[in-house]
């Protein structure tokens, strides 16, 4: 008789969601996290879309430590001196309120507390050393020479899943699979935030940018408002950094903060926290075998992330994959069968959900996000077009077609290359 029905390693969104799902259905659950309070070391950009969370915690909007609901969403391109931004501000977001900025160091301990309230044994401040194996099956976890056993282990270790890698359940992390996110939290009074961004006391702004002001680097940036702080940061593909011999990503975040369109927004703020984290961006190609005898892999550990350069999501995938793994464990418990065959249900559930559907639909997205022209050329091209169209300086006006042609020539892009790029961006996005 094992000690628990399920052991979940990692109290992030995926791990806690799995633990809550199982505990709600009467399974005995151990949730272990390396930090105390549980989940306090977790980090993300900071926008949470809560449709999936609502499945297990219907009252999350009133109970969770949330910052501001997203009312205003911006996407934009930055060049050395300009910013080109699409500002999408809608009553629809206000009426639905499912996207919120969060600070994970507050949110994750709350979610783990919910797992405890659901009946899971939540142990903070312990780093599991290894997975316990017997006859090729995962039978539990090991720590300080003790083995704690369970029918199933759910690996929610996050982006660098050491246990899964050491047990040979997936290969070591490759450069192309991840981006590096660097983030700062900048304190600013609620009054300033609300005046500066035209927000109410509860509404917030989430912006994502493509940084076209860096040479040879495909870097995205984000800027979110919290109650009394700003979360901002940059996301750079590891492979791209390595190719360019870049080891100091803080230079890049400084360049973002000093950009003429960003600097005034954080004026008067003080840096309260900073951090860095890897982000799964390898798409379908980095997803390992998701289950086997006695185990399932969820959230970032499974590579569940989505990015097209302008939209970055992972927390929603974490919730849903955790819930689906939890449901699978509940089903397996009912049949008292935790073999690979029984746990294949998890994969099936993921296939039917938007998690694997998204990853499959956008399987070629890396060709877009890795396309240097997206970052180095097209933002400049946009800037040139807008300058031609909007700047009256006593020159004869041109048709858009001719502007495009001369911009492409100035930036040494062939018309054919530009046309095929746009065609593929259109096809893949």
């Amino acid at each position: 008789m094992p000690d628990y029905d399920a052991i979940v390693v990692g109290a992030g969104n995926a791990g806690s969601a799995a633990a809550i799902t199982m505990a709600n259905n009467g399974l005995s659950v151990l949730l272990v996290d390396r930090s105390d309070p549980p989940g306090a070391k977790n980090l993300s950009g900071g926008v949470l879309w809560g449709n999936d969370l609502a499945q297990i915690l219907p009252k999350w909007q009133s109970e969770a430590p949330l910052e501001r609901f997203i009312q205003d969403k911006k996407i934009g391109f930055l060049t050395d001196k300009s910013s080109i931004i699409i500002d999408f501000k809608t009553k629809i977001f206000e009426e639905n309120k499912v996207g919120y900025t969060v600070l994970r160091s507050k949110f994750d301990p709350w979610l783990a507390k919910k797992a405890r309230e659901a009946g899971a044994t939540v142990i903070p401040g312990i780093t599991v050393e290894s997975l316990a194996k017997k006859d090729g099956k995962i039978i539990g976890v090991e720590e300080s020479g003790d083995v704690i056993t369970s029918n199933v282990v759910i690996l929610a270790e996050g982006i660098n899943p050491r246990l899964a890698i050491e047990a040979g359940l997936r290969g070591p992390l490759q450069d192309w699979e991840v981006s590096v996110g660097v983030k700062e939290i900048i304190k600013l009074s609620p009054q300033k935030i609300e005046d500066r961004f035209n927000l109410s006391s509860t509404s917030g702004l989430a912006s994502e940018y493509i940084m076209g002001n860096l040479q040879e680097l495909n870097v995205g940036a984000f800027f979110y408002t919290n109650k009394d702080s700003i979360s901002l940061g940059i996301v750079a593909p590891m492979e791209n950094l390595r190719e360019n011999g870049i080891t100091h990503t803080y230079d890049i975040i400084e360049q973002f903060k000093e950009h003429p369109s960003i600097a005034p927004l954080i004026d008067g703020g003080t840096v309260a926290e900073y951090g860095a984290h890897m982000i799964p961006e390898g798409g379908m190609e980095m997803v390992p075998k998701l289950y086997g005898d006695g185990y399932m892999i969820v959230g970032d550990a499974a590579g569940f992330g989505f990015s097209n350069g302008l939209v970055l999501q992972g927390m929603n995938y974490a919730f849903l994959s955790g819930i689906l793994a939890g449901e699978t464990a509940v089903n397996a418990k009912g049949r008292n069968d935790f073999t690979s065959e029984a746990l294949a249900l998890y994969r099936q559930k993921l296939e039917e959900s938007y998690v694997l559907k998204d990853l499959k639909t956008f399987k070629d997205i890396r060709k877009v996000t890795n396309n240097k022209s997206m970052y180095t050329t097209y933002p400049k091209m946009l800037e040139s077009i807008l300058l031609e169209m909007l700047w009256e300086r006593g020159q004869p006006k041109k048709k858009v077609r001719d502007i495009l042609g001369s911009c492409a020539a100035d930036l040494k892009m062939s018309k054919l290359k530009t046309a095929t790029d746009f065609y593929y961006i259109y096809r893949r996005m």
Partner: protein
Amino acid sequence: MLKIAVMIKQVPDSQDISIDPVTKTLNRSMARNVVNPPDVNATEAAIELKSKYGGEITVITMGPPMADSALLELMGRGADNGVLVTDRVFAGADTWPTAFTLASVADYLGGFDVIFCGEETTDSSTGHVGPGIAEFLGYEQATYVHKTEYQDEHFIVERDIEGAEETIKIGKPAVITITLNANEPRNPTLKKKIAAYKKGVRLVTNKELQLDPACIGLKGSPTIVKDMKTVPDPVKNPSKPGIEELDKIVSVLIEKGVVK
């Protein structure tokens, strides 16, 4: 079988504390709560004593309900029981009512052969509470101790004194305060922590203790903070390495074998 207690406190992590530039008070809102560092050494001293001479260890703290995590953490390291003394009437206590309340709890729990404390807390640095408990209980005491042995119903302790080390023998029961870094505390283990969370901590309120409200909490505190001043930042040392020096520092550390 020694009956051992450890008096501990949950404090804001000193790394996360800043001084509010306007109000000049400590800003603890960003700080994570941790076990007062020398209290971890005190707990280790208790565990070492128990493993040599046998016994049962009870960790005790006075604090808000959330302080239970500090007790569970120390139970995960090897303490047997946790007692959380929590009641609104205890709030706002300075060192006098704190020592009085904790001494009363020790008495309420039947007294102990030895009570370990940390030398002082990182958030107020008075060092009053350990000796205070000893005085209220009429126990013998030894402060600033880094090594404890037990022989013939006595404790033989090594204490740090200015520029020297003193070995003294004290009788039982005793209060012993342990210095920071006196020993190398063992880590909590998963198995012990699971057992701790299963067992939980015992809550003690003033309903049970029945202490005179005039002697506890804010009412029982003779200390009055008249003023608080901030010390100006030391003059910036121009030779202090900037962030660009990091590579140099890392290579020196590797050279010296500090990091691999």
